[in-house]
């Protein structure tokens, strides 16, 4: 059995693009100056920082470079945006978010609830789409912040940010909108002006930059307090000597990602759809958890009934295939994914739900290989399941169709 790595977990992290690494190396080697320094030697790193800021501005289509703040990761971007807005609006104690946000945001809101904030968690339907009516109803005079992810990390379902921004403007123009865009960066275009968002965060390692660098867009009309207090860096918004090589890497990755958006929308989507339709065709009672919802082009989340996700992942891993699961067993949390539970995925399928997330590096051969081995793996695991009668019944139904 030849074991070649087939990486289909790009929503977890991505491979660093060779061109990104190339762009970074000079700033790890000879151009090590602190960009704040006064001598000529610091000019190169100062310029590199400025160029990266410009690249991120273009990536977001922001109006001004001053609206870009470099951070260390997506979680820092989110924490900075959320705490920053709340600290500037101390009299407002109401926040609206969704039930399916990333844990880095959900756990922060749970902490804020203990500190006296009231938080409304907006639900989703069975396809994972946001309940906009519920969101609209929840906004009132005391709402400091609405915080919504652009696309869900587990399902890839895209939320209608522009519509949400319009609703907020209509209901309470004072309310700020923070968008966690970690899962869309490099997958679909981001246009902060067209969307009408106040704050938007991304993480470099989700679009082929290295881990340890992120960015926050904060529009010029939005004032936030810093999370890290110290030096004057990032216009006083984020102290600490700039991580020049990584920021350069993320800038380069953003530039490359913009060029690849069309490839994502066509080729990555085609391979994702091929994988998806192959699975649904060849494996009885595999369930596309997102129905007809609009998704980012690289993600599919499929539930295999009457088996458990971790075992699927372990067998895939034996063949070099990397994917992830919302099952309780993989997380060690004992409860299956909060996202799939919010969607009311049936309990027969929730534990056996697997996410495949592709990238520009995914090849047709890889997808064909996964499609050729997956039915055997599922069959093998189902053969040891105590639900033989239920499975036989399902198989009969499928064959009669």
């Amino acid at each position, binding site marked *: 059995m030849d074991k070649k790595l087939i990486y289909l977990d790009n929503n977890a992290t991505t491979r660093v693009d060779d061109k990104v690494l190339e762009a970074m190396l000079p700033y790890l080697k000879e151009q090590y100056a602190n960009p704040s320094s006064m001598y000529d030697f610091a000019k190169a790193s100062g310029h590199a920082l400025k160029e990266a800021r410009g690249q991120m501005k273009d990536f977001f289509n922001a109006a001004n470079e001053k609206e870009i703040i470099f951070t260390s990761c997506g979680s820092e971007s989110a924490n900075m945006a959320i705490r920053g807005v709340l600290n500037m609006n101390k009299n407002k104690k109401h926040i609206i978010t969704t039930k399916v946000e990333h844990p880095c945001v959900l756990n922060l809101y749970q902490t804020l609830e203990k500190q006296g904030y009231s938080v409304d968690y907006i639900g989703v339907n069975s396809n994972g789409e946001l309940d906009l009516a519920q969101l609209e109803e929840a906004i009132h005079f005391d709402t400091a912040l609405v915080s919504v992810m652009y696309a869900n990390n587990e399902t890839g379902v895209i939320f209608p940010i522009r519509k949400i921004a319009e609703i907020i403007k209509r209901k309470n123009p004072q309310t700020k909108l923070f968008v966690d865009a970690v899962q869309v960066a490099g997958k679909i275009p981001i246009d902060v002006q067209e969307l009408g968002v106040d704050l938007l965060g991304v993480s470099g390692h989700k679009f082929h930059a290295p881990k340890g660098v992120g960015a926050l867009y904060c529009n010029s009309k939005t004032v936030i307090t810093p999370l890290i207090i110290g030096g004057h860096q990032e216009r006083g918004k984020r102290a600490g000597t700039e991580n020049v090589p990584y920021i350069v890497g993320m800038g380069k990755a953003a530039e490359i990602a913009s060029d690849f958006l069309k490839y994502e929308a066509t080729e990555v989507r085609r391979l994702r759809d091929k994988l998806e339709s192959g699975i649904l065709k060849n494996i009885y009672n595999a369930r596309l958890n997102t129905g007809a919802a609009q998704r980012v082009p690289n993600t599919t989340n499929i539930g295999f009934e*009457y088996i*458990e996700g971790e075992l699927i992942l372990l067998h895939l891993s034996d063949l070099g295939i990397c994917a992830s699961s919302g099952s309780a*067993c993989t997380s*060690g949390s004992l409860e299956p994914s909060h996202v799939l539970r919010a969607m009311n995925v049936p*309990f*027969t399928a929730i534990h056996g739900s697997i996410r495949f997330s592709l990238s520009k590096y995914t090849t047709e051969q890889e997808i064909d290989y996964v499609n050729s081995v997956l039915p055997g793996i599922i069959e093998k695991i189902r*053969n040891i399941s*105590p639900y033989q009668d239920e499975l036989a019944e399902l198989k009969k139904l499928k064959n009669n169709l």
Partner: protein
Amino acid sequence: MWDYSEKVMDHYRNPRNVGKIDDADAVGSAGSLACGDQLKIYLKIKNGIVTDAKFQTFGCGSAVASSSILTEMIIGKPISEVRKITNKDIADQLEGLPPEKMHCSVMGYEALEDALQGYEDYQDLEDIRADEDKKQKIVCTCFGITENVIWDAIKQNGLTTVEEITNYTKAGGACGKCKGLIQDIIDTYYKKEESKKTEGLSPAQRILKINSIIENQISPELQKDGGDITLVDIDGNKVYVKLRGKCSGCKNSMLTLKAFVEMTLKDAISKDIEVIEVGA
């Protein structure tokens, strides 16, 4: 990624004894689909020996490995030995499980216990778990974990914290409302263990302990009043003593004997102790 042992990986990759025994003599199950893992075990028993065992499991790698190795551990073994298998034995055979996965071994033990309980030869489990009501009382409603299961997990693995109970049985792992109850169970268990310690004394230890209490606690008190006591003999729960000095022939000697000597020994050793005075 879990750090599974080679043995665990071998067993989930190539599970042994998978399937169903149609004419099984005993069938047991544990867990449920909603909980994320379920195990069914089928046994063939002949002349008190497990001649065949098969399993079906819905669950993660460690759940399949636990079931698979359990069947290997019991085939060919007499029921009396199979009864002694604990979740810890299963985990040990697998060369260990990650702490968060210990509940998979507990599930194997539960299914085995369930099967044996249904088997006609099987007599009630020993001592503290005999209380039927208690066995069925659900503590963790999220995962349907009974007090019985928690009790066994504490006993077999020496667990002392709520977090450990969650790792081993899942109880308290979801909404967390039952964590207080789990703490109560832990407290009750260790209180019982404490009191069991003296009940479990060997006859020799028991004699030494009674003697030491009489010499070090009772005698000094009586000496204060000019009396004394000596141990003459011990026969089961009967403790024969001789009262001396002022105590001997004292009108209150009966009171001294019952209210003080006997109560002290009852508290320290066993409530069945009876103190009898022998003549001078």
